């Protein structure tokens, strides 16, 4: 696990890592993955990967609308909201402009 890989993973995970942290992480992760290597001692050629600990059919719900009609409820914890000219919050989340 080298620094370049650490930076790649950090990018995928959208986590900012400092230069020194990258070094540390490379070391720690190498250790951890060395330890995990022992799983290769086990022959799993004919083994099915577990799909779920729960042995039951997937439950479903009926097609009814009984949720979601309260914008404030889902917006009230937003760290940033746009506002109109009077300063009233608008019913949107907001992020730095995305260039497409």
């Amino acid at each position, binding site marked *: 696990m080298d620094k370049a890989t650490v930076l790649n993973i950090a990018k995928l995970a959208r986590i900012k890592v400092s230069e020194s942290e990258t070094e540390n992480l490379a070391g720690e992760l190498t250790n951890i993955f060395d330890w995990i290597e022992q799983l290769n001692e086990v022959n799993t050629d004919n083994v099915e990967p577990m799909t779920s600990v729960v042995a039951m*059919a997937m439950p*479903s719900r009926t*097609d009814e609308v009984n949720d*979601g*009609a309260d*914008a404030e409820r889902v917006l009230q914890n937003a760290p940033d909201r746009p506002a109109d000219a009077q300063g009233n919050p608008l019913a949107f989340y907001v992020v730095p402009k995305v260039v497409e």
Partner: protein
Amino acid sequence: MTYLIEGETGDWEVVIGLEVHAQIISKAKLFSSAATEFGAEPNSQVSLVDAAMPGMLPVINEVCIGQAVRTGLGLNARINLHSVFERKNYFYPDLPQGYQISQFLEPIVGEGVITLDMPEGPRDIGVERLHMEQDAGKSLHDQDPKRTFIDLNRSGIALMEIVSKPDLRSPAEAGTYMRKLRAIVRYLGTCDGNMEQGSLRCDANVSVRPVGEKELRTRTEIKNINSVRFVMAAIEYEAERQVEIYEDGGNVVQETRLYDANKGETWSMRSKEEAHDYRYFPDPDLLPVDLTQEFVDEIKASLPELPDAKKQRFVNDFGVAVDDAATLVADKETADYFEAVADSGDAKLAANWIIQELFAVLNKDSLGIAESPVSSDDLGKLVGLIADNTISGRIAKDVFEVMVTEGGDPAQIVENKGLKQITDTGEIEAMIDALINDNPDQTQQYRDGNTKVTGWFVGQIMKATGGKANPQMVNELLKKKLGLG
């Protein structure tokens, strides 16, 4: 006729695969009970699950499963009784969970086929798969100079992603495929196919290669095209762009592009080379989907007659021309309208009237058949009046115009305006006799072999009768009287 791009170095063919996202018709979303209506106030159809609040969990909507199976059956595809939902992980503000619940290795529907009616003949286009997934929310980039606004109403709505095999070879085929697919899902009631509202979206994968080359070259993906016209135009532009690149000695870059309808061009969105690593894995909040064969069979038994079968029936049972039948079944409502009119007795006439006269009226005002000013009942009556010789086709057009602008029962209109066809042979004969007497030159021309002058005679009779003479009868009587009977 194969579609080819004539380049400087030779001919190139286009290879196209389409990925269509179709919003499933259901009242609630795929994994949440929020509503799916179009055009609601921002963030007013967003449950805690859709907003990906901490601790929220998905529970699947049973109707969506049925709709996906239904669509798969309508595509003559294999239904996979066992399928798995996987998480597709990436970061984007309209994807609140930071992953989309989708299907990857084990989709609910496998291979199928869509048959296209092309001018050259029927073409079978392979469908690779159909899977279910969540839709994302909407990003609004034009509300603020520095910020993007996010509306999650659409987040979590059920989508079917239908992936074709790269069997399409022209923009026209791509357009026909889109129209056929749209017709099928509308027939089935699994998607309303409204491209303007975004309930049907198309991503086109386009590559080109010199004729004769077997391998596929690099393809680009044109995303989110929202009309059939644009699908065809975008493909045409992109194919030509790629040919130019190759002929200039360059290489096509694998990337995502968008179609700019105003400029008629595609442009690069982001390089697919810094490709997303989606890190798919089975969603641990869900279990595999396991369907019984009974469940699938029940749905199969409940399928409506689909376009291809309906078209065949129109040809076989109603004697409609194949091309006309194809036109009529392209839209289920049109097909239903036609059958109601065909009840009047003359199906071919009915087909003709709908395709020529009614469509012209509808297209002028951009109306759908559901908004037709003339009901199928009334058009049926009109066709009936032609069929039983009450009026001529010519007169019928006048009656039709009245029906369109003023409405009214056709028989009534004929009565009121005295438009009944003159079928009394005596009257016509008398008129012909008079004409022959008064016009010896024309009569002579005719007897000398200029059969074209018949038209002049017919025209005169029509004028004299105000168009009410039965043209067929006039022709027959004229021939008799003029001596070529």
